[in-house]
Each structure stands twice: as C-alpha cells, then as structure tokens.
C-alpha cells in the first residue's frame, strides 16, 4: 500500500454517527436548533437496525388502560432493570415518551388505532398495562421511515455507507472523526463542535444474534479509545425467541408480540413450562393458570399476565433449561404456538395474519412453517446491549466533553435488563436530548483542527491489513471470536469459562493484528471486517471483565456459580475505561441512590 494518500474534509457543528432511530432523532433535533448537522450512516439511509424492531414503542399514554401513567412505566422499567438503572434516565424516559410518540404522528407515522380513533397500545413483557404503540409487527419500519422522511427535509447532510475508524480529540474534547466511504474506499475527516454516537449494539460479537453485520460495537469502542467510560457491559440481553431452524436463519428475531397476542411456550411434552417457576418479585402480578393468562391478553383488566410475558432474561433462561433437560424441540429450541388461539378468536387464522403479518411472512418464506396452523421453534438469541457509553442523564454527554451518546450505544436507562418496547422510546427521548444538547455545546465550542500527522497515523492503521500479503482471512477470525463469546460469555456464565475467554481474547487479538486483505479498497467486505474486528475485540473484553466481576445473577447477566442476587453487588455498576498503560481498567461505582419521591413510586407499584 503506497502511502496513506489524501482525504476530504467536512465541517459541521454537530456530527451524528449512526442513522437508526436515535441518530436520526438527534440529527433532527440538532438541525431544529439551527446548527449545521452531518449524519453518517454505516449502511444506506433507512436500513439501520431500528427497521427490525417489531413489537412497539412503550409510552404511558393510557389510551387502552387509563390506570397507566409515567409513574407505573418508571416503576416497571426499574423493576425490569433490577434496580441498577440510572433512575433519572428512567424517570425522564417515562415522562417524555408519550410526547415523543405523538410527535411522530404529526410527522406522518400511522400507528394502529383504538375504536375511539386514538393510538392503540398492546401488552408486552414486564409492562403492567398495555403500553406499546405499534403498527402490526413492523413498528420499527414505521418509525425509521417517519424519521427519515421528516429528516431529509431538515437540511441535514447525509453521508451514506461511511464507517468511522477513530474519534479525534483536541485539548481533551472530541472535535471530529476519521471515516472512510465504503463505495470508493477513500478517507474523510469530519470536524465538528460536538459528536453524537448513535451506533447501536454489539450483537455481532456472538454467533447467534438478531443483529446484522453492522453491530460490531463501533460506538462503544470508539468512545473507549477516546478515553470515555463504559458502563454495565456485563448486561447483554438474550432475547428468548429467535428462530432456530433452518440453520441459515438461526437468531433472527421472533417478536415478543407473538406472546403479547396470546402465543404460548411449550416443551416437547406439551407443557407450558413457564408456569413452573415465577420469580418472587413478579409472583403477585402473574397468572397462576392458563385460563387467567388468556383473559389477560384479551384485555380483562382483572386478570394477571401469563408467565410468557415475564421479563426477557427470565424467559430466555427458562427456555435454555428446558432444552438442556432434553425437553426441547427437534432443532434445539422450544415451541412457540400462536395457532391455538384460532379456537378462541373470531376470524382465527386471518386474525393471526392481521396481528402478526411479518412473522407469518418470515416463517412461511424462510422455514416453510404456517404459524396459523403449527407451532414455531424458538430459542434465545443475542439481541441488545444494556451497557455502553456512560452518559449524563439529562444531556447524554459522555465522560469526554463534546462526545454524546444516545440509544443502544448509551447505558443507564435499562439497568440489568431492558423491557421490550423501551428501546424505541429510549431512542426517541434520548436521541432528542442528545441532539439538542450537542447543538448547544457546539454553539459554545467551535470545531478545532487536528494535526495531519495524527490523521495520517489513523489512516495508516486502517490500511495495515493490505500490507500483509500472507495473513489470515478476517472472516475466519471474526467467526472464531463469535463462537468463543457464544460458548464462554453467553447466556449462562461461570468464572472458569469467562477467565478462559479473557485468555482467548488475547490470542484472538494477536490473530486480528495479523489478518490480511486482498484487492481493492472499493466496497471490500474483507477490509471492513478487518477494521470492525478491533471494535468487537474491545467490547468483548469489556463484557468478559464485567461479567467476571459481577459474582451474582441479575437481569441479563446469569452466573451459574452465583445463581442468586448479591445485595452488595446490587448497589454497584461496573465502569471500564482505558488505563494509562493502555490496558482495560474496571471500577465498581455506587448505583445512584433513589430519591425519596421515586423510591415511593417504586414502592407503590411493587
């Protein structure tokens, strides 16, 4: 590779990295504040992972059940997160979500309606009342398209198919990024007064995942390398219901909406095993018989919810237990059956197709299964990262000035386990906050220049893989990492395996430093994989270190050697940051104590 060549330079007040829901919402808000906004998408605009969200967006609008309020939503979020959440984020989220959803309607979103002509809301795991505004099972598509179609008229400059390789700093604050465009393989320097990370999750560090190729922990790793704190990295959400067959689609999401509409989980003996064990803190709100559970999903306000709608962490582990005990389905999952409701509702099969059109389509096309006639096979899949960049609750600024984070890449709101539907509301509420605060920061802090030598060294590193004629294929290293993480730091963890993983990560890091890439720089997937590998290794190490330190089980983090909760660990969050020696440091910091008024809300809603 002859030299690093030249680069194009772009100047913005606010630069947003990532164009899913959080990034689009942040960009719209920053543009509304009147500053110059640039938006970088790793893929084409409108293709980010938000498009995959199915079930709905949680907002206590109380359209279906007037007992709902922001207080109940707050308490549900804290309970779901096992009380290690940032309570201020949970409070703001619950209070502001309804206004953010209504705003989407005024931008053209068409949510399904109640008979009264208001936005319809559906049941979901961990939410006490029907709370999820939705469009069948394609809510994410409706949201991203609404934000996209509104956003393109706000004067935002969109850079599609760009990948950021490094943040740039000057005098302790982030002042821009180095990126490359995938189409041509050329480098670009973006200078900005403030930078918002909205890059989503880390799912591609695992073998079985609902995430696409993009979700390689870029934002978390960029922030970490820039000196920012990462929080709660042990809390990875394994969604209980991913497809398990055929092999090529293993991990693809099966919406929780199936269970919200009355779908039940059964083992190979036909038993609804979710009734076998109901966690203490949900016992009073969970049905103890099938008949009551059905009444709940059909809207009986006196009935308690069926155990299939317990939180995702619990349902995922119960499924794993059935499979391990030899009571699984033929392809290593359990059965999720919605077809049984045909005998209960008017319209039968048509009702199911109407409520769950994408699921019907997905199973019919990919697995030859008609979900209105037979059960689906499902099992846990890596789905969502609760942990991420530590941010200020109100402004979304990270611990590095000028660097903001919103949506999945940020941490705090969800604690140890996210409730379904809370991610779409998260990205609206905190995307907006990040955008407006980044804009005001940018007004006070002009962009700064970074020495060419620094930019050249970043570009040089990004091109190294071309210089190694006989290194390893980056896809092979990626595959080895995914299998290793799945095996050792997956849904159930144990000290010896996590320690083994840390050793393996050292070896994989050495392999990643020796990958080689053939050919040209234009749209070269092997090269992109080589660059993504570093990010995946960083976040994998963070997950493993935090998982090792949390010697208890809480939310998405389950330790086979410490299956119970530990009161002392329930009062700490784990922070990781890059130490002066370049190695990862871990610190246990106290969970923010609940103020009296919020503690009372939690107590009243127990």
């Amino acid at each position, binding site marked *: 590779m002859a030299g690093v060549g030249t680069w194009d330079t772009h100047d913005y007040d606010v630069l947003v990295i990532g164009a899913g829901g959080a990034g689009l919402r942040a960009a719209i808000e920053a543009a509304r504040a009147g500053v110059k906004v640039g938006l970088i998408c790793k*893929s*084409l*605009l*409108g*293709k*980010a*992972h938000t*498009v*995959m969200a199915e079930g709905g967006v949680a907002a206590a609008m109380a359209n279906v059940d007037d007992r709902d309020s922001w207080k109940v939503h707050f308490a549900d979020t804290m309970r779901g997160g096992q009380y290690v959440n940032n309570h201020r984020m949970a409070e703001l989220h619950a209070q502001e979500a309804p*206004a953010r959803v*209504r*705003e989407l*309607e*005024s*931008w*053209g979103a*068409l949510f399904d*309606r109640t008979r*009264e*002509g*208001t936005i319809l809301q559906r049941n979901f795991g961990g939410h006490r009342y029907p709370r999820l505004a939705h*469009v*069948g099972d*394609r809510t994410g*598509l*409706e949201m991203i*398209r609404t934000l996209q*179609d*509104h956003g*393109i*008229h706000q004067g935002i400059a*969109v850079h*599609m198919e760009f990948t950021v390789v490094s943040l740039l700093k000057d005098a302790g604050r982030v002042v821009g990024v180095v990126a490359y465009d995938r*189409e041509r393989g050329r480098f670009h320097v973006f200078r900005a007064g403030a930078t918002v990370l909205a890059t989503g999750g880390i799912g591609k560090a695992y073998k079985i995942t609902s995430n*696409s*190729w*993009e979700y390689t922990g870029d934002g978390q790793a960029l922030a970490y390398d820039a000196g920012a704190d990462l929080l709660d990295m042990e809390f990875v959400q394994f969604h209980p219901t991913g497809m398990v067959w*055929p*092999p*090529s*689609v293993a991990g*693809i999401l099966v919406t929780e909406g199936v269970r919200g509409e009355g779908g039940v989980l059964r083992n190979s003996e036909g038993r609804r095993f979710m009734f076998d064990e109901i966690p203490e803190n949900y016992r009073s709100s969970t049905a103890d018989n099938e008949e009551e559970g059905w009444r709940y999903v059909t809207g009986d306000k006196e009935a308690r919810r069926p155990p299939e709608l317990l939180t995702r962490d619990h349902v995922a582990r119960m499924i794993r237990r059935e499979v391990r005990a030899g009571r699984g389905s033929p392809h290593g999952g359990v059965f999720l059956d919605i077809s049984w409701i045909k005998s209960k509702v008017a319209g039968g099969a048509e009702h199911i197709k109407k409520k769950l059109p*994408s699921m019907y389509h*997905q199973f019919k*096309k*990919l697995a030859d299964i008609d979900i209105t006639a037979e059960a689906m096979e499902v099992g846990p899949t890596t789905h969502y990262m609760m942990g991420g960049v530590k941010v200020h609750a109100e402004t979304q600024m990270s611990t590095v000035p000028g660097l903001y984070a919103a949506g999945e890449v940020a941490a705090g709101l969800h604690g140890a386990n996210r409730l379904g539907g809370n991610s779409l509301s998260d990205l609206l509420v905190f995307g907006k906050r990040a955008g407006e605060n980044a804009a005001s920061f940018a007004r006070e802090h002009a962009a700064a220049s970074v020495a060419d030598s620094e930019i050249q060294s970043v570009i040089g590193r990004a091109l190294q893989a071309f210089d190694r004629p006989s290194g390893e*294929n980056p*896809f*092979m290293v990626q595959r080895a990492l995914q299998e290793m993480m799945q095996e050792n730091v997956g849904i159930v963890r144990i000290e010896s395996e996590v320690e083994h993983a840390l050793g393996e990560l050292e070896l994989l890091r050495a392999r990643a430093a020796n990958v080689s*890439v*053939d*050919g*040209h720089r*234009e*749209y*070269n*997937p*092997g*090269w992109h*994989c080589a660059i993504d590998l570093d990010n995946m290794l960083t976040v994998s190490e963070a997950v493993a270190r935090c998982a090792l330190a949390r010697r208890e089980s809480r939310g998405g983090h389950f330790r086979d050697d410490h299956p119970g909760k530990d009161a002392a660990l329930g009062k700490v969050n784990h922070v990781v940051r890059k130490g002066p020696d370049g190695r990862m440091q871990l610190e246990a910091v106290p969970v923010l104590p609940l103020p009296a008024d919020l503690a009372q809300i939690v107590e009243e809603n127990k």
Partner: protein
Amino acid sequence: MTTSVSATFKIWRGDASGGAFVEYQTQLSEGMVVLDAVHQIQAESAPDLACRWNCKAGKCGSCSAEVNGVPRLMCMTRMNDLPVDQPVTIQPLHTFPMIRDLVTDVSWNYRQKLRVKKFSPRAPDRPDGTYTMYQRDIERVQEFRKCIECFLCQDVCHVLRDHEKHDEFIGPRLLIYTASLEMHPLDGEDRLQALKDEHGIGYCNITKCCTKVCPEEIRITDNGIIPLKERVVDEFYDPLKIVLRALGVKKQKTAK
C-alpha cells in the same frame, strides 16, 4: 437427513468500467438462501466480493439483486426454490449505475424522494397534539408504508430499465411514496400537478411488473398508481374543470 449438495454460482464481478461472470462452487445446507451462499463464497474464496445486506429477514431491503434474471431479495430467495442442476446466476440491479460486483449506486432514488412535497398535516385535533383517526381510514396508507425501499420495483420498471427516463419519471417506489402522502388522512398538500408535469405518472402504462416483484406484496399498480392516475385525470382532463379553470374559477381543496 440432508445430503451434502454443492451448487455452482455465476456471480457478476466488476466495476463501472466492466466485468464478467465468475464461477464459484459452494456447499448447500438445509434452508439456505441465496445470500447465505454469497456469504459463504465471501468467507471461503472471495473476501472482496462486494454485496449489500443488513437484516437478512426481508425487512431492510438492502440485498436486492437479479437471481437467474429475476429481481429479488437474496435473503428471501431459498436455494431449494431454484434449480441447482445448472449454475445460479447472480447479478446487480440493472437500472442503477454500477459500483462494484453486486453493489449499485441507488442514490438516485433518495434524490427523487426529495422532489416529492413533504408531509403537511392539518392542525392537531386535540390540545395534547393528538389526532383522531380510525383504523379503516389508515389501512389503505398502511399498505404503502410497508415498503422497505429495496428498489426492486424501480429496477424492473421498463420506463427506467429500458427507456432510462430517470429525469422525467420517479418510478413505482416514489409513486407509492406519493400515494402514501396523498391518501394520508392528515395531509393537506397537493401533489397532482407535480405528478403530471414533473414526476411523469403518465409514463406508467400499467404492466404491473413492479407489483410482481414487490417482496412486501404491495399492490403497487392497482392500489397506488391507478388511483393517482385517476386523480390526475380528474383534476386536469375533466372537461368541466377545464372550462372552470379557463374562467378563472379557483379550485377548492377537498378532504381526502
């Protein structure tokens, strides 16, 4: 239960300056889709083979290509629906400029969207900013909003594909986008003049090729384009309205 079968793929490799089909062999496994085969070929023998994809579940519309000559999503095309006793050909969308291998420059579609007048809602019905809309009033538009912007309809449309009327015709995707705004219960904008004069709705001669390739099974022609054509005809070719216009009678915006 599965026997190991391999298949031959002829994949177009090249860039804007030219290219050729290259043959690859790979093993098939149960339930495999075309995109899996492409990924497997990338991992085994062609790490620089360019291909767009994201969700792998037919929801994002990224992996559009022409498989055995038919525009399809590679992630939703199962290998067991294709004859594998002969090579499976995979080539990029024909209607857009080539970037590399299976990747084309689809930015034209994004530019066309900017030409369509944006959503313009009436004032909210209630003080909290909310609107009253009934399910029956939105179902028609919800069908159009299922669009995943895979641009297969744009690729197959002969007005663009064969006649290259990219400067005069926005194509089925953008007509469906326009329909979703024109038929939106809250929208008050008028896009009929633009449909007729700038967006070339008259070029569509209803061959329904777009509807046939739509992976979301949107009835693009019947439910979207034809009603728009009717509105345009009603607006501009109704003899009574022509007379009224000539007499300077202003039109009144009617409820949608």
